């Protein structure tokens, strides 16, 4: 086991797969010589050369389109969209073309591609560089959506996403880039669609994703220690495929569900979770399903404002204590 940052785990995952498979290519803005604006892809150019690791113009539609065209004709490309907010500039290629082409062609076309992006807030970048858009991607049939919460998962899930034969939107939580964690040595590949449960509290389940996972875990510890409320945290890890079994198990075990979402409220992924529970496990509930989300506002920039907008461990604790 080596200790890596979340940031380093990105390059580690890419390197592992590029080493293994010549058809894996990687393109994006400032990704090659500069090593990425978040320094997530340093060293790849040196290791795999300027053809397999390549800087593009500021042309998100060209990046997404190139990745799609290459995936349908023999490569297994990875594209970077620098900030997930910029998916909006190539949403047509992603949501209308990449997501639908296999289906529309009755399976003639296969698209083994990954598009990575830095997602979410915490760096005081303001409303256009801090969005959590995992729900945008989840809403589009034909996209898989992966969002790791720790370095080991970054590496293992990125590897799994690259090996997957379907298009995967891989969302890295930019606030987690500096965080550290143990990453297994040697080849490390996880499975898409398998949630992980932290803790075994029997009072409440907190369903979380990506940057919200460490906050939920911290809240869970405080709820146990300070309020005697037993929590378990479900780290969904991928929204599509979604591990509904683990979710429903945890509902049965606790009877109380709280979602912890970084995306703004309306049509967030927590709404989907809530609707699944309300449809399939209503009688297992001991009380309302509560959603803790970024309120339905664009994200403000200033530190004080941003911190008060995105769900924090304290807000989770307070909400659970109040509602429970």
């Amino acid at each position: 086991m080596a200790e890596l940052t979340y940031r380093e785990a990105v390059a580690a995952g890419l390197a592992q797969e590029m080493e293994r498979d010549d058809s894996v290519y990687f393109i994006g803005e400032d990704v090659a010589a500069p090593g990425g604006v978040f320094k997530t892809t340093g060293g790849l150019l040196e290791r795999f050369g300027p053809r397999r690791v390549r800087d593009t113009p500021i042309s998100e539609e060209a990046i997404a389109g190139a990745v799609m065209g290459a995936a349908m004709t023999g490569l297994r490309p990875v594209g970077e969209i620098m900030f997930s907010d910029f998916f909006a500039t190539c949403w047509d290629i992603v949501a209308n073309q990449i997501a639908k082409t296999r289906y529309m062609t009755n399976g003639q076309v296969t698209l083994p591609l990954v598009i990575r992006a830095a997602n979410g807030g915490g760096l005081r970048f303001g409303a256009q560089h801090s969005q959590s858009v995992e729900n945008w991607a989840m809403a589009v049939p034909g996209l898989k959506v992966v969002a790791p919460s720790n370095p080991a998962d970054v590496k293992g899930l990125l590897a799994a996403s690259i090996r997957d034969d379907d298009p995967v939107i891989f969302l890295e939580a930019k606030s987690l880039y500096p965080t550290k964690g143990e990453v297994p040595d040697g080849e490390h590949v996880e499975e898409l669609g398998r949630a992980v449960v932290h803790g075994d509290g029997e009072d409440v389940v907190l369903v979380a994703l990506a940057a919200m996972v460490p906050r939920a875990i911290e809240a869970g510890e405080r709820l146990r220690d300070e309020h005697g409320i037993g929590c378990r945290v479900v780290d969904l890890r991928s929204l599509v495929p979604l591990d509904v079994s683990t979710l429903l198990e945890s509902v049965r075990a606790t009877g109380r569900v709280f979602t912890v979402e970084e995306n703004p409220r309306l049509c967030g992924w927590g709404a989907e979770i809530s609707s699944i529970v309300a449809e399939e496990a209503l009688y297992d509930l001991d009380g309302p399903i509560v959603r803790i989300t970024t309120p339905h506002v664009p994200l403000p920039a200033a530190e004080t404002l941003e911190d008060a907008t995105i769900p924090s461990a304290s807000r989770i604790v307070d909400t659970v204590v109040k509602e429970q």
Partner: protein
Amino acid sequence: MSVVARWAREAKLDDPTRLELYSKLSEIRQFEQRAYDLFLQNLVAGTSHLSLGQEAVAAGFAQAMRDDDFTFCTYRGHAHTLVRGASMTGLMAELLGRSNGILAGKGGSMHLTSVENYAMGSYAIVGSHLPIAAGAAWAAQERGTGQVSVCFFGDGTTNIGAFHEALNLAAVWKLPVVFVCENNLYMEYTPIASVTAVEHPGADRAAAYGLESLIVDGNDVDEVYGIATTYLERARDGGGPALIEAKTYRKGGHSRADPAKYRPPQEVESWLARDPIILYRSRLLELGVEEKTLDDIDSEVLTAVDRATEEAKAAPPADEELIHADVWADGGSRWRN
């Protein structure tokens, strides 16, 4: 400012090539006319966009392409898919929403695709397929296959952002892709001239990507074949992309029931007089081809179109089981366990 290719008129095309070109023209013409008839018989649901009048562009390029070169086209893609060798029955059945449709009914008229024939798809959102075609060219370049990607689109498409991004990327990366702007003077119902800052929407933009300005008579299949051959070979040899503007005209409306009343009668007349098939037929006769040879081609094509029509009409409607198939590479649509 613009180079009009005179390749074909000067070079000597051999007879077999000329007959194949004629055959492709005939195939498109008769397929499209049948599609229109079936629409009038209320057998085609949804929309459809015919290439009647624009056949020479599809025919000339297809003739010049290597078997494994890629075609990327638009919703106006029956012709481009057909001339790559896609099953006529499959195409006709797709228009009719039948189970033997080339996409089993899931895509419809606007999304015809035949990967086994390297017809990589018809794209219904203006401009999106240009970067995708560039991507296929990028893969060909990296894999060293010598394949060229050919991407067809209309005049109206030159004003959307994806056009710009794709052209620049293709030029910078010297990708083996030939972009073909079929300028039929209209978008849907609006004349391109009224919404475009330059006279030649394709050719006048080429310099912005360091490319030559190229215009071809899109109703002259020899000219099209000539320019296609030239720039396909150049792209194949590492010479990078080209942007070719083919001037042409559609005989009918933009789609289905559009009567195209917005076009000045004189304009329509003068273009109909330059019908690519009439033009080519008379050239071939002048060159000494027997009338019967051409008639035989036409009737062979007619037989094929008839058979395709019958096979399509005889088939059951698209199979509802497929609704849940092929969202994913595993063949299914499950998003949960």
